[in-house]
């Protein structure tokens, strides 16, 4: 597969009959969210916090549908008990796409600790992580992850690296300082 990973992901959602896409927005997810919103066969479920998406996904599976859950890496911290308690205990399939912050090239110190924690914390509660640093790797990981979760019965997170989505610049005037002339 070539081209933007988001377009490939949307195509793969169709092939795998994904009927619900639950998400908390992130810039790196905006294309996939937009194409999901424009797709009449997909019910998009915007969330107030990421752990809701884990539960929505479980509920969808109980009712015979597949749900993909999209979030930024910071939001992974919100999901841990829901994944451990609901997903892992009951062996629900789970497919997440996580766009990374606090990763390659990050300049916001507040993002760094969670960026480091995402993979070990997900793995600690039973989620398999597939990291991707290029469009091709991301598309491949989405394809593999959908197969592993909904056919293989696993909990899988595709981690889209900041090397791919780009670091957001944090620069500006310094509070309380006189601008230099």
């Amino acid at each position, binding site marked *: 597969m070539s081209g933007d990973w988001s377009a490939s992901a949307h195509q793969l959602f169709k092939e795998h009959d994904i009927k619900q896409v639950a998400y908390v927005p992130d810039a790196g997810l905006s294309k996939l969210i937009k194409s999901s919103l424009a797709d009449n066969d997909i019910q998009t479920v915007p*969330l107030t916090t990421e752990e809701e998406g884990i*539960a929505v996904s479980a509920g969808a599976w*109980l009712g015979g549908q597949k749900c993909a859950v999209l979030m930024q890496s910071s939001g992974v911290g919100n999901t841990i008990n829901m994944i451990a308690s609901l997903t892992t205990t009951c062996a629900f399939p789970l497919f997440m796409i996580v766009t990374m912050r606090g990763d390659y090239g990050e300049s916001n110190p507040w993002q760094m600790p969670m960026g480091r924690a995402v993979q070990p914390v997900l793995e600690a509660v039973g989620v398999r992580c597939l990291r991707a640093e290029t469009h091709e790797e991301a598309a491949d990981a989405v394809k593999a992850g959908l197969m592993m979760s909904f056919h293989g019965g696993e909990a899988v997170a595709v981690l889209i690296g900041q090397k791919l989505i780009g670091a957001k610049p944090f620069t500006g005037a310094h509070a309380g300082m006189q601008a230099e002339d």
Partner: protein
Amino acid sequence: MATQKLFRRDVVKKLMSVRGDALCISGLGSPTWDLAAADHRDENFYIWGGMGGATPTGLGLALAQPDRKVWVITGDGEQLMGVGSFSTVALQQPKNLAIIVLDNEHYGETGMQAAPTGRGTDLAAMAAGAGIAQTMTVTDEAGLDDLMKRLTDGNFPLVAVVKVDVRTGETVMPPRDGKYVKTAFRMAVLGADKAQHPG
């Protein structure tokens, strides 16, 4: 002098008399024991953890099964932990989802510590504020009759907060194997072929 508050076991038993073929999700703690005591069947998904997850689980199910009614039965503390899910539900406006909060104004499973719902926090008002049009607070038998009528009429989404006292019934445990409960539920709702070969 106020009359005695409703007893949660009587409430759930009464509600189950108008359940029909509704699918039920119960929130951790007493609501799970209440549902198991009143109407144990495969179409119950009993949650023993994942605090805050009962309502969004019900939402995912309601969206997947638009022709079946889905009732979430949970507690005030559980719903408060996931209170943003009222907003998530309101955005979807599922015509088949009812959320019934058994509100004893305490954290019952952890030693009956006081909850904010007994000190001014109004879950029905929070649901209304999130954009759910049908909300009600039930405090007596007449209110319970009204709730049963609304559950039957199915003007959903509905959030009903039922004020109950701190009495708990005998602990009635549903199967504790979550994998089994999940698969039994799917078998009952989807049939064996789809449940076992989701492809």
